[in-house]
């Protein structure tokens, strides 16, 4: 069994209201020095050793990310 991590982030040109809201809050929290925040999704999968990269890519591309607005990165 192996742990695979998939991080899904909005494409850079897509508006990220979530990140914006956090950035706005930081000022009020008195935390300085943060220039930008983007919020994405983080998936942790436990998979059988037999599952290959191709299957994981397909999984990420169809279920975990919405390719119309998101990119993803896989870490094994």
């Amino acid at each position, binding site marked *: 069994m192996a742990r695979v991590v998939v991080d899904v982030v909005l494409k850079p040109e897509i508006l990220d*209201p*979530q990140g914006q*809201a*956090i950035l*706005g*809050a930081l000022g*009020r*929290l008195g935390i300085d020095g943060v220039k930008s925040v983007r*919020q994405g999704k983080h998936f942790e999968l436990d998979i059988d050793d037999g599952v290959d990269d191709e299957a994981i890519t397909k999984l990420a591309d169809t279920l975990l990310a919405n390719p119309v607005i998101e990119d993803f990165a896989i870490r094994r």
Partner: protein
Amino acid sequence: MPTRVGVVTFPGSLDDRDAARAVRITGGEAVSLWHADPSLHDVDAVILPGGFSYGDYLRAGAIARFAPVMESIIESARDGMPVLGICNGFQVLCESHLLPGALVRNDHRKFVCRDQHLLVENAGTTWTNQYREGQEITIPIKNGEGGYVADRDVLDELEANGRVVVRYLGGNPNGSQREIAGIANEAGNVVGLMPHPEHAVEALTGPGTDGIGFFTSLLGVREPA
């Protein structure tokens, strides 16, 4: 002098006017409080209304908790001032640690708006003394992150000390642990509710008037009959 009840408006608060209306209808004076103003303007009690403060994109209530007005509310609540958090207000109270636990995404992953049957389990809090213990009431719920979760120890403690104020009846609408719809702090002055009593104060616009008791309970405490 009518009881002065502050209703907080955060950016993204939605049911603030409705909470104020409910206060008015039940004979109180609604005072609007602004998130950025730390002053509570001498109110006797505070309602944190429903809505999506700051869009609730991060976690419901996570950002609102840091508003200047919240510091004053947290302090006054610890000193016994009555505070009612409705829906987003409940989430803010949990994020502020005035109430234990947290509210997470509904187990069916959809927003749900419906008329919900509830069981009043604690009719002794500042906000529920006009109900009978065991009374069944119907009040709208509308939430996307209404699933109440807490450690088992916390849940046991809530149950053991009568701090579960209302419980869902006839089906759990959001996956809340032990069907919890509302809880109180130890002193009973701070109550968080997922259902919206302010939307059940007029027969014309709600499923009935079962929500009135939450507001008259407060007035009852202030002006004993």
